[in-house]
Each structure stands twice: as C-alpha cells, then as structure tokens.
C-alpha cells in the first residue's frame, strides 16, 4: 500500500497536461470550461487532434491504434485530459462499438470501420433502447427478417444519442421471435442514410437535442453488416459490461466539476453551512477516487466484475450532488434560460442549471441505478 503515485505516473500526467496545453483549441477549451453542449463537429475535431498523437482510442489494443496502457494508466489519462481543460472524448463508436468489433467482427468489418472511428471521421449511434424496452432491454421488438442478401428491419429505437449527426448505427434487433427473449437478438450495423430511416430529435430538460427517436421502416441492411453469429447479439452487447470497470463512475467529470465549484467559490462570499456541505462532498469525492484506484491497483490481474455496478451507483450520486451544489451556488442567476440568458448574464454561471438538469440522466443511462443495485444484490451480495 502506497499513498503517492510513483514518479512514472506523475511524469505521465505532466506529459499529458503539456500536450493538452499545446494542442487544445481555445474555443473547445472555452466550451468545456463553461459546460456548453458540444456537437458532433466539436467531438470529431477533438478526436482527430487526439488521434494525431495516437491517443483517441486508448483502450483499444495496440494493433488497432490503441495504446496498450494498463487500466490504471488509461484512467490517469482520461482524468488528466479533463483536468487539463479538454472536453471528453467519448463516442459510442469508441467506447462501445470498437471493443465489440475487435472481439467479434470479421477482418473486413474491422478494416472497414475501426480506422474512421479512431480518426473521428465516422460517428456512430447506439440503437438499443425502444419505447417498450428500457430496463427490460431483452424485450426489444425491432425486427430483422432475412431477405436474400439483406435483412429487412422494422421498428422504433429511442434515446439514440447523436442519431441526427451519425453516419452509422449499431443496433440490437430481433431475428428470432420464437426463441427466449435474450437468445433471439442479433447485432446489426445500419447505415443511417438508408431509405426508410427517419430521425426525430427529442428535446431534453436542459434544452439539449442530443437524443433522438429513430424510426425504421422496411430498411434494407446487407447481411455483411451482421456482427458475429445470428441470434447471438445479446452476448456481444453483454461483453461490454465486463470491458470497462471504472469509467462508468465518471469520477473524472466529478473532479472537473468539483474544481469548477471551488473556483467559483473562491470568487464569492460563501456561507459556513455551504462550505460544510462542500467539504462533505469533497470527502465523498476523495472516497470515490480511492475506490477507483483500489479497483485498479489492489488485484491488477483480476477481471472487471459486477463490482463496477457499485462504482456506477456511488459515482453518479456524487456527480449529481456536485452538479446540485453548483446550481445552488449560482442562486437566482441559475434561473435564466441558458439559451436565452439576457445581455448581462455571468458567463461562468450560464450553464450551471442546464448542467444540473443534464446530470439527472447519469443515474438513468447505462442501466438505471436501480438495475445496478439488482445486479449487485445478486452477483456481489449473493441474494
């Protein structure tokens, strides 16, 4: 057991920081600092800049342009990017499709899709949830019926981030309605320019339009776009659950937002009661950070397990608490509509209420915290 990082890791952090200071464009830095909505255009630009240094897909294996870093180093990297002022480089293509293609895709599929994801050129949407299938995802009904060299896809996907600006969507579709729910699902790659696809944006509480509904009406998808075997799609999607053990807790964002809170506090007079609450939250933040580092260092050889669900529950609670503190700090200034804030808005406070509202999603997406608690009860506590 050792409290301080070793010199190697400290050096690594400062290498990342130096690089970000030299390469992060000012407008992206400003947007990240204020918590503004980033669109696909900004994400792609930042991804391409990271790629120029070989850093856009750190978690992928080296042969596909990844870094070969240990999970600990990857964690330090992701965290340092944010703390150095950069926006997140997360996209469904990098975080979800990449690992699935690498594990289950054909060589042709890998060659065709991975490089453009890595360079930030193609954007992917994730087509999992449906109006009737949220937590109970395996009940999904979007169907794919084989017709010669194509599948004909019909159905309705929802909560699809960036569908309006994505070239492609990876989707779970039902190929066998007779089988048990989990065993009749396939994993399909769908070109968003295909005839029969209609995208309807959904405005969220914070005014954002990242989310969409996707309607699929007799969409023809080549059978070459099937990942792995037919009817095995559920297994491939589940592969992701064991892939990332700590990122889902969002501790880097929590730290970044906490520093934002401290910066704003330093410019204002703060009541002792608020200071006390912030200190309580800082203790939880130190705890979350330590839990993540414990997961990464205690048994480095162990495989990620259901413990990740506990990190998600606690990590998202913390994130939401910090976001609430920020809005509380803004006081009545937070009542301005972020998109129409008037001429005299304090830029630093403009997005705080919107960011708070946006943060309510983190305990819902990626498996609600209630579903995570079910997983922990069963797989960790043995109930």
């Amino acid at each position: 057991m050792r409290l301080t990082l070793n010199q190697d890791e400290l050096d690594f952090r400062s290498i990342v920081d130096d690089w970000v200071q030299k390469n992060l464009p000012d407008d992206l830095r400003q947007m990240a600092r204020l918590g503004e909505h980033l669109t696909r255009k900004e994400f792609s630009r930042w991804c391409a800049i990271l790629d120029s240094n070989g850093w856009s897909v750190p978690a992928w294996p080296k042969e596909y342009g990844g870094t070969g870093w240990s999970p600990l180093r990857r964690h330090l990297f992701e965290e340092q990017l944010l703390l150095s002022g950069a926006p997140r480089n997360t996209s469904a293509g990098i975080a979800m499709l990449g690992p699935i293609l690498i594990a289950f895709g054909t060589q042709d599929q890998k060659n065709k899709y991975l490089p453009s994801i890595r360079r930030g050129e193609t954007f992917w949407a994730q087509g999992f949830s449906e109006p009737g299938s949220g937590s109970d995802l395996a009940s999904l009904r979007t169907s794919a019926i084989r017709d010669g060299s194509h599948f004909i896809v019909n159905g309705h996907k929802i909560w699809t981030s960036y569908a309006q600006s994505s070239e492609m969507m990876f989707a779970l579709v039902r190929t066998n309605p007779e089988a048990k729910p989990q065993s009749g699902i396939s994993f399909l790659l769908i070109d968003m320019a295909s005839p029969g696809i209609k995208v309807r944006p959904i405005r969220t509480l914070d005014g954002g339009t990242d989310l969409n509904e996707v309607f699929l009406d007799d969409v023809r998808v080549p059978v070459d776009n099937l990942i792995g075997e037919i009817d095995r799609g559920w297994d491939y999607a589940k592969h992701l659950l064991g892939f990332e053990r700590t990122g889902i807790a969002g501790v880097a964002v929590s730290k970044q937002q906490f520093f934002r809170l401290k910066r704003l506090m330093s410019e204002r007079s703060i009541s002792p009661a608020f200071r006390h609450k912030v200190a309580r939250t800082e203790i939880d933040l130190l705890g979350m950070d330590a839990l993540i580092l414990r997961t990464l260092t205690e048994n480095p050889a162990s495989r990620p397990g259901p413990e990740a669900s506990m990190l998600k529950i606690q990590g998202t609670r913390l994130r939401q608490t910090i976001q609430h503190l920020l809005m509380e700090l803004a006081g009545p200034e937070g009542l301005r509509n972020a998109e129409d804030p008037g001429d005299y808005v304090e830029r630093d406070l403009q997005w705080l209420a919107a960011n708070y509202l946006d943060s309510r999603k983190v305990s819902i997406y990626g498996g609600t915290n209630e579903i995570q608690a079910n997983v922990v009860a069963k797989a960790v506590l043995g109930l």
Partner: protein
Amino acid sequence: MDFSLSPDQILFRDSVDRFFNETFTKEDGRDKAVDWQALVDMGLTAAPFPDSMGGTGANTIHLMFVANGIGRTLTTAPFLPCVVMAGHILRDCANVPGIQPLIEALTNGTRKIAFAELSSGSITQTGTSSIVSGEARLVLEGSADVLILASANHDKLVIIEGKAKGVTCSPFTTLDKREAADLIFSNVAVNSIIAEGHQAQQMIARAQRTMKALLCAEACGAMQATLELTLDYVRTRKQFGRPIGSFQALQHRLVDMRIAYDLADTQTRVAIMAVEEADSPTIVRLCAAAHAQVVKAARLIAEEAIQMHGGMGMTEECRAGKFAKRLITLSILLGSEDSAIENFLLSA
C-alpha cells in the same frame, strides 16, 4: 495510490486473521485476562516497537489488520488503548530513563499501561518532582497498572502508578463491554516528566492520529462482520414463503450498506497509508475524511442490521445488537460526523 499488499503484508494479514478467527470465537463470558494473554502470546503487544526495543517492528498497515480483527470478533482486550495509544508514546520516548522497562512489561504482558488526559486540574512542577491534581474521565482501560498522563493542554506527560497514593480509580464498563474508568488525582507526587512543551504535544498528536486511523480500522472490521451476518440472516429467514433477502426493498438497502462499507474501508486504508508516509496536515485531512465516512457508515450498518433482524435484533442475545453496540461506541469515541468535517475543513 496503490492498494496492493506486499507478500509480507499478505502473510501477516492471513496469520492475524487466522489467529482472531480461531482464538476469539466464544461469544459471551470471555475471560478478559485470557484474551489479553492470547494477544501477548501472539506477539501483538510487541507489535509497534522496533527490534532494538524487543518488538516486532510492525507498521501502521500491520496494525490495521490487527484492528480489523478486533472489530470483526468483538474482542474486548485493550489492544488499541494500551498497545497503540500508550505504546506509541512509550516508543517515542524510549530514551527517557525508566521507559524501557515499561515497554518490556507491556510487551510481555506483565503490566497494562493506559493513556489518560486531564479534563480539569493540572500538573505542577515543584523542583525536581511534580504534583498532579485533577480529573480524567472515561479513560479506556483506566484501571491499568500504569498511566501515562497528559496535562489538559498536552504540554506535560508524566508516568503514574495506578496504585499511587492519591489516585482514585472508579471503573465501569462501556456500552460494548470494554473496561474504562474515571480517575481522580489528589496531590499525587510524580518523579519525572517524560516529555514537555512542544515535544509532548507533537508526541501526543502523533499517537492520537494513529489511534484515530486504527479506531476507524476496528470499526471497519466490525462493519464487515455485521454486513456478513445480516446477509446470512436475510438469506435464511423466511416470511411469506420466501427468504426476506429476495425482497427488493431490502436488497437495495443492503447494497447501500455495502457501498458505505466499501467507502469507509477504502478511506480508512488511505488514512493508514497517510499515517505511514505523509506530512501532518495531510494525515489530519485524510484521517478526518476516513472518520467522517466511518461514522456515517457505522450508524447506517448498525441501525439497518437491527432493523433487518426484526424483533430478534432488539434482543440482548442477538449478535447484530452486539456489533451495533461496538459500532456506536467506536463512533462516539471517534466523534461526530460534523466534527470530522470541521477537522477536514480546518486542515485545508
């Protein structure tokens, strides 16, 4: 931060775990003298002292495993008050004449030594000797053979024989059946001051920080056991024809208990690492963080354990209640969550 254990630490932990599991299994009516002798025989009373003082040179990480074991098995033998608190002060003034024999006596189990601080009164120097008058309340293991007594502002440390003329010892047991005592000193003559001024204050502060981190570790051991026995209970207790652990209302609360425990245990380990390697402000800060999490988690786990045991949880014989009492005692000894947050703020 690196939480991995060295092979030596794993070996030590496993042997300590085995020792506690095999030795401290009987639930009630344990003979305290036998328990203490078991710690002596295992070499644990020699733990914090270096080779040169006849000890085994354990560091704070080793002591953490011992404290975990004490909490897990509800041991009442006074390892923390005598070996950790008094022991660390003795170790730090081992060069003072007369201290080395006390270390030997503590190590080989012939004498118990406890630490006390005056809540009122003073230690007054008169020529070569000093006079102690005042009170020390709620002293853990206060009826020990020897007392290391600190003045109220910690600027003087003296050694007093428990049986010395003018010492009135009024013993009692705590909520969790530990020995404690209130002490009254009336014109007790002591020969020598073992430390004074800034040096004494530093020494006491250092020992108290270590004590705080290890009280947290003891609570973590007790929380781990409480969680385990509550899980065992909800898996086997049936109502409405099924184990009550199958009900989601309980499952989600048990998950919260586990998360609270994980945070408390992890931050206690951070505090322990800090005691081993950091500067004082960092130790104070990280101990305060651990303290806040431990007190919060201890209350949650103690109260939920009683609730989930239902009526049984309210009975004297139920083990959940015994753990709850240990957890509440430790929380009160540590101080409130609010006081921990204040300390955390002050250390920034």
